[in-house]
C-alpha cells in the first residue's frame, strides 16, 4: 500500500517542479519579447519629391488615425527638412557642393525620374493642386500640427554639414542609429523609404564592365 502511494506522489512532485521550471523559462522568454505599439516609424532616407510625398502622406494619415507616428530623416531625406530660404549649407567645398546638388526643403525636392530640369516636379505640383492633394511641404507642416515626431539623424547632419538652424522648426532633437532602432523596434509598422533602383536601361557601372 505504502509503496504504491510513494510511486503515485513521486512523479507528481517532479512534474510540479518541472512545471515551475517551465513557467519560469516562459516568463524569462516573455520578458525578452517586444511589445509592439500602434505606431508607425518611417526612415526617410530618400529626399526626392516622389519619396518625401508618400513619407509625409503615411505619417500624417497614421497620426490622423490615432497611431503614434515618427519620421527619422537621414541622408537625402534631411535635405527635405532644410529651411526653404537656406541656400548653401556645410563648412567645406564637399558639403557645399552636396547642398547645391540637393536644394533644401520639400518645396525644391526633385523627382527621382522624369525630373526634366524641374518641369516634372512643376507638373506634379500642378496636378496636385488640381486634385487638391497637399504638397510635401504642406504635409510636413500638417505632420507637425498632428503631433508626428520629426527627428533628424545627428550623424548624417554632421556628415552633410547641416546645422540645427539650417533645418525647419518643430523638429525633435537629432538622434543616432540606436535611438532610431528603438523607434522602429516597438512600432507595429516600420518603413524605410529609399531611392528607386537603377533602371534596367541604365546598368550599374560594374555591370558595364567599368
Amino acid at each position: 500500500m505504502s509503496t504504491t502511494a510513494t510511486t503515485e506522489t513521486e512523479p507528481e512532485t517532479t512534474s510540479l517542479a518541472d512545471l515551475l521550471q517551465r513557467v519560469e523559462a516562459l516568463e524569462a522568454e516573455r520578458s525578452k519579447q517586444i511589445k509592439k505599439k500602434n505606431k508607425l516609424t518611417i526612415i526617410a532616407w530618400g529626399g526626392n519629391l516622389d519619396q518625401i510625398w508618400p513619407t509625409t502622406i503615411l505619417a500624417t494619415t497614421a497620426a490622423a488615425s490615432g497611431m503614434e507616428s515618427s519620421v527619422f530623416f537621414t541622408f537625402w531625406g534631411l535635405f527635405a527638412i532644410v529651411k526653404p530660404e537656406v541656400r548653401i549649407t556645410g563648412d567645406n567645398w564637399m558639403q557645399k557642393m552636396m547642398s547645391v546638388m540637393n536644394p533644401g526643403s520639400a518645396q525644391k525636392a526633385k523627382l527621382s525620374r522624369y525630373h526634366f530640369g524641374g518641369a516634372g516636379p512643376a507638373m506634379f505640383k500642378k496636378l496636385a493642386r488640381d486634385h487638391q492633394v497637399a504638397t510635401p511641404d504642406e504635409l510636413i507642416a500638417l505632420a507637425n500640427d498632428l503631433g508626428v515626431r520629426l527627428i533628424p539623424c545627428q550623424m548624417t547632419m554632421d556628415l552633410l554639414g547641416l546645422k540645427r538652424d539650417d533645418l525647419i522648426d518643430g523638429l525633435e532633437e537629432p538622434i543616432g542609429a540606436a535611438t532610431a532602432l528603438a523607434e522602429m523596434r516597438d512600432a507595429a509598422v516600420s518603413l524605410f523609404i529609399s531611392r528607386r533602383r537603377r533602371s534596367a536601361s541604365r546598368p550599374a557601372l560594374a555591370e558595364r564592365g567599368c
Partner: protein
Amino acid sequence: MDVITRTVDAKGQSCPGPLVALARALKDARTGDLFELLATDPGSRSDVPSWAEISGNELLEAEVLDDDSFRYVIRKVA
C-alpha cells in the same frame, strides 16, 4: 435617432485630406458624438472604413449620394 454633432465637408480634397479633416474635428469632440463626413475622393470608400478600424472609431453609415459624392457617419469612440 441620434443627432449629428458636426458635418465635416471634405469635398474636393484628396487622400489624406478627408481623414485629416475628420481627425481634426474629432479631436475636440466628446465620446459618442456623431460626425457626418462628406467627400468626393473615391479612395475614401476604402480609406474611411480602414481609418475607423485603426483609430477605433465606429463607422455607422457609408453611402453614395445622388451627385456621386460620398457620405459617412462616424461615432467617436476613441
